[in-house]
């Protein structure tokens, strides 16, 4: 049997920063968590969330026999309608609740299943655990909701006549718009993921805070300019490739440049994750009182 010191020698050391070890540990967490996220008992709901927008787009474009003609005739209107569907249904609803489900369960689910202690009993910095769990949620949500966005866009383009659709996609602004939609979806997962993982760590019953965030995000268009910027949807909205009218009641705010929106979201995410890491250092295992 090895001594503690001998054992430590088997793990790579590089002063206090052991990036090689931490990366291996993050990969090990990813291996377990991604599998659980996709195949675990809680996975069914996220498949439903991811499938609904695709199904809606399919029905809108193919259930009505005149839809194809309308899309061909009024392509720019069709794009605006898609922009609304993207923001209201995909971003504000499915990505929001999908991320809530995935990321809140990363820790809360383990507490409910009484298995979080196995991570706590490993030779693992709690910050690395937060990073590993977050990336696993991110991998899951990005794969699922990128497919949702891509699938929805597919039906929009499919309904338009050939070769107009292909020309628009490859010779026009189509590809850039599609990639921007995908980018916004990924940023949504990054931002909402951090928020919901934080909520899952801080609150025993995360439903109420999640609903409060939902209300804040939905009512964002009504908020005064300063408050409007304290939200994720504001930045995602300003990044949308096809401008969307927020309605007559909306407060008007100058669009934030992507050079500010994207770094802001990323910095916000890092800050939220840092708070989660601080919180988890003092986290106690007490399944009985949960």
């Amino acid at each position, binding site marked *: 049997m*090895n001594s503690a010191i001998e054992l430590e020698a088997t793990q*790579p050391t590089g002063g206090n920063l052991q990036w090689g070890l931490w990366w*291996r540990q993050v990969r*090990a967490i990813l291996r377990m968590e991604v599998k659980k996220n996709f195949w675990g008992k809680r996975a069914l709901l996220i498949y439903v969330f991811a499938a609904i927008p695709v199904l809606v787009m399919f029905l809108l474009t193919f259930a009505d026999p005149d839809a194809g003609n309308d899309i061909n005739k009024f392509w720019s209107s069709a794009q605006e309608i898609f922009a609304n569907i993207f923001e209201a249904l995909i971003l504000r609803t499915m990505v929001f609740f999908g991320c809530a489900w995935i990321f809140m369960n990363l820790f809360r689910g383990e507490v409910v299943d009484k298995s979080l202690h196995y991570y706590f009993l490993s030779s693992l910095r709690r910050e690395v655990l937060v990073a590993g769990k977050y990336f696993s949620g991110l991998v899951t949500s990005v794969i699922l909701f990128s497919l949702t966005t891509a699938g929805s866009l597919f039906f929009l383009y499919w309904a338009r006549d050939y070769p107009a659709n292909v020309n628009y996609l490859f010779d026009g602004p189509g590809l850039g718009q599609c990639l921007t939609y995908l980018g916004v979806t990924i940023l949504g997962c990054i931002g909402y993921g951090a928020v919901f993982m934080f909520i899952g760590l801080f609150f025993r019953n995360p439903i109420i805070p999640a609903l409060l965030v939902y209300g804040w995000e939905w009512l964002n268009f009504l908020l005064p300019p300063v408050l409007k910027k304290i939200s994720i949807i504001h930045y995602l909205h300003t990044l949308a490739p096809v401008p969307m009218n927020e309605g007559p009641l909306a407060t008007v705010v100058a669009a934030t440049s992507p050079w500010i929106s994207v770094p802001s979201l990323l910095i916000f995410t890092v800050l939220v994750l840092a708070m989660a890491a601080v919180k988890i250092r003092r986290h106690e295992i007490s399944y009985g009182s949960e």
Partner: protein
Amino acid sequence: MNESANHNSDKLIVFENVSKFYGEILGVNRVNLTISPGITSLVGPNGSGKTTLMNLMTGLIQPSRGTIRVLGVTPDDPQRMFSFMGYCGQFDSFPRGMTGFDFVFSFLLVHGFPKKEAEAMAWRAIERVDLVEAAHRKVAGYSKGMRQRIRLAQSIAHDPSVIILDEPLNGLDPMARDETKRLFRQLAKDGLHLIISSHILHELEEMSDTIVLINNGYILAEGGVSSVREEKMEEHPMQIMIRCDRPAEFASRVFASDSVVEAQLHEDKHGLFIKTRNADSFYSLLNKMVAEQGFNVETVAPVDDNLNAVYHYLIGSGGGGQA
């Protein structure tokens, strides 16, 4: 080996004035404890604070007051601490869908071991708890004893030098119990710290180098069973059963000695019970009486020089062998 590892306190588990409160409920209070290598048993009734002590040691809960150092490392540094510590707790739950092998292997990967090494270590640990044949079956289908064994495998798989075991013999059949106890003894012989809690007093007694008696969150006594028993000699004189000829005469003679506080004839009139506050002095007297007065002594057996009696005297119940 680094400098601090040579330091003596870095070979011990030290609790300094540790208290833990769950709101207004006391978990443990003002615990000062030093645990050396070998097998240390935590003994106490349900709710006495044994699991709280173990959870504090492993950082699963934080102390309300005081400090804990395990081989010089505090529990708020889990990366360092769990490189040399393993904990087999009472939580009978597992990550869903895992086989026994996956369970041990995956957490070795989380420890940071490379894949090949982790695989070899996982098999070695599974072999030690004799679960090789069931290793590729889902843990959800395991019996209670098998689940206990796979948890034990997980806690020893990374070759820790401190192993904390909360009721590790629960659910094991007699053969598995013997095997497991043998494994514990071997690990202790290798110089490891084993901290065990159990309700089976006689099993603890035969394994332990040190016992820590705990009740209502307070440490009542610590040390070897005999030394703890001796500490309580004034309050609870030791009872010794003697089988001999002429027990009445024997009783009258020993009663004259200062070391004997009570002598009582056995119901069958072939022996007697004596109570003494100084066992060594009584044994000298006994030898003298046998040599000089020709008593024929068949048996001399201490009745309450064991963990069960110590437990009974200090905690007040559980005389039936189970705490």
